[in-house]
């Protein structure tokens, strides 16, 4: 059907029409998928965004009855939100920095050094994915419970660090492995010191991958809710943890919507560089693929 035969007399119209219907049919699936996905994926978010800017929204109106920013002031004057937002940002930065400090030297070693058990040790980090996550958190929580780490900042930092390991080791390892070593060797040959070669040649080449790893780690940590909920409560409350109570109490619909909207902003940043992340293969690296 798709074979391109030279059009002969009235066969021409038949093949054209056939390939045209074939195209419709092929793109038809695309169109159908597009419409359904748009409804299913963007539909829920449509409600959140509009609720964030609604003063009043009466059923059964499709859009808010009154738009406005009244609830933004109220939301951010709430003591719990005003405290949780900066705390969450600082916590995520600290976890990301610690993760980089722990993992980046290791990833360099995995990529560039030869030692016994290298492959097995690198693969062992898959264990972070191979457990049912919440069951593992419970196991950790039982130990933290006896060590009095429940409700402490170090406890939350540690449980969030576990989640960052795979990404922060596998993405940079792949990057260090992927670079062309001839440039480094040339620089060494003309007398550059190894440190200078590393800073001026190696580092710039792996920078895209390193920034992707840092960005993904920061955003993932910022949104990490389950570990922080289990280990952090009652004293440590991050923004995502706060969302649980905002959803459950449902005092004012707008609070949840506005917090969701604000929480979502870092993720939109990722969306802007999504194509780059996808092409670099970074999006699936966190799953060990």
């Amino acid at each position: 059907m798709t074979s391109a035969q030279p059009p002969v007399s009235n066969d021409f119209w038949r093949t054209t029409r056939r390939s045209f219907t074939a195209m419709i049919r092929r793109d038809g699936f695309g169109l159908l998928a597009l419409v359904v996905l748009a409804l299913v994926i963007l539909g829920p978010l449509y409600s959140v965004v509009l609720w964030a800017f609604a003063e009043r929204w009466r059923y059964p109106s499709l859009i808010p009855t009154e738009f406005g920013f009244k609830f933004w002031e109220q939301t951010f004057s709430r003591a719990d939100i005003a405290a949780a937002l900066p705390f969450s940002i600082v916590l995520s930065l600290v976890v990301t920095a610690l993760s980089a400090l722990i993992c980046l030297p290791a990833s360099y070693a995995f990529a560039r050094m030869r030692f016994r058990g290298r492959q097995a040790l690198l693969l062992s980090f898959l264990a972070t994915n191979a457990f049912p996550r919440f069951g593992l958190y419970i196991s950790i929580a039982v130990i933290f419970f006896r060590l009095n780490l429940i409700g402490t900042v170090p406890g939350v930092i540690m449980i969030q660090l576990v989640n960052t390991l795979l990404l922060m080791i596998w993405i940079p390892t792949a990057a260090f492995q992927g670079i062309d070593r001839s440039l480094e060797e040339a620089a060494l040959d003309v007398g550059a010191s190894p440190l200078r070669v590393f800073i001026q040649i190696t580092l710039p080449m792996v920078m895209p991958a390193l920034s992707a790893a840092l960005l993904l780690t920061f955003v993932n940590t910022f949104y990490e809710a389950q570990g922080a909920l289990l280990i952090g409560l009652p004293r440590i409350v991050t923004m995502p943890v706060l969302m649980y109570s905002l959803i459950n109490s449902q005092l004012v619909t707008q609070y949840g919507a506005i917090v969701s909207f604000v929480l979502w902003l870092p993720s939109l940043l990722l969306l802007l560089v999504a194509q780059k992340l996808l092409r670099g293969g970074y999006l699936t690296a966190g799953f060990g693929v």
Partner: protein
Amino acid sequence: MTTLQTSPPSSAWSRWRGAILAYVLVAPPLLLMVLLIFIPALQSIVRTLTIDVEGQSGFSFSRYVAFFNDPISVSNLVFTFQIVFLTLIIIFIVCFPLAIYLRFAQGRIAAAVQILVLFPLFVPGIILCYALIRFLGTRGTLDTVLSIFGVTEYRTPYLKPDAIIIGLVWESIPFTVLVLTAGLRQISDSLIESARDVGAGDWTIFRRIILPLITRPVLIAFSLNFLGIFGSYTVPYLLGPAAPQMMGVFMQQTFGQYRRPDDAETQAVITFLICSLVGLLYVRTVASQRIQQEDE
């Protein structure tokens, strides 16, 4: 590695020094992983199998017997299995056609579909739950739209098992499609064309060429989704019913609300044991893929 390297002549001592340095560099993350994954998991397994009787500890299955004699625990475990299997089936029904479409289609529509498929990756779980409540809940967006078309008897899936499945499928679409599409890209166009030239139909091509080549991506998607759903908490907690509960919600409640860490631990170990085979499958599949890639 087959490339020749112009490395300086290395004595046994300098090789040793290099290896020691390497171990020092990889030690911190490994230590963290051992301390926070292997030791807690092992300790939980050992502790749930021991019992203290008058100061003496001995081997016992009593905690597990108690779990399986408790109707609520068992119904939660069964419920978790039902959700896992239903969700997995729906995930593959939704994601397979999308992955095949994205592998072979070109043009603007395909690009737009790709963006939408990836979109859930950038929506954190907690926001998804809030959004789905607003969308699916009574007097939510869907209810409103339906009422405009004259449908008045909308019954919300919110707080029912259906809502858990919807949320979990929504979350896993990007990863599953990404993995399946990546697998499909390994199949060259020329291979399919030559099969077509010798008269193979769409179904034969799918069964004989596509299917064998994407076994690995399918296994990875299956195992990670299985583990992800079994270990999920946020979606079933916020969207699901109060009873029965999925294991994540059940464990959290046992640990956090009822303050019974021992029982929570037993529940956790039961999820470990159930998921251990799938976890092994995941590690083995990724490992074999990686080793093959390094050899190439």
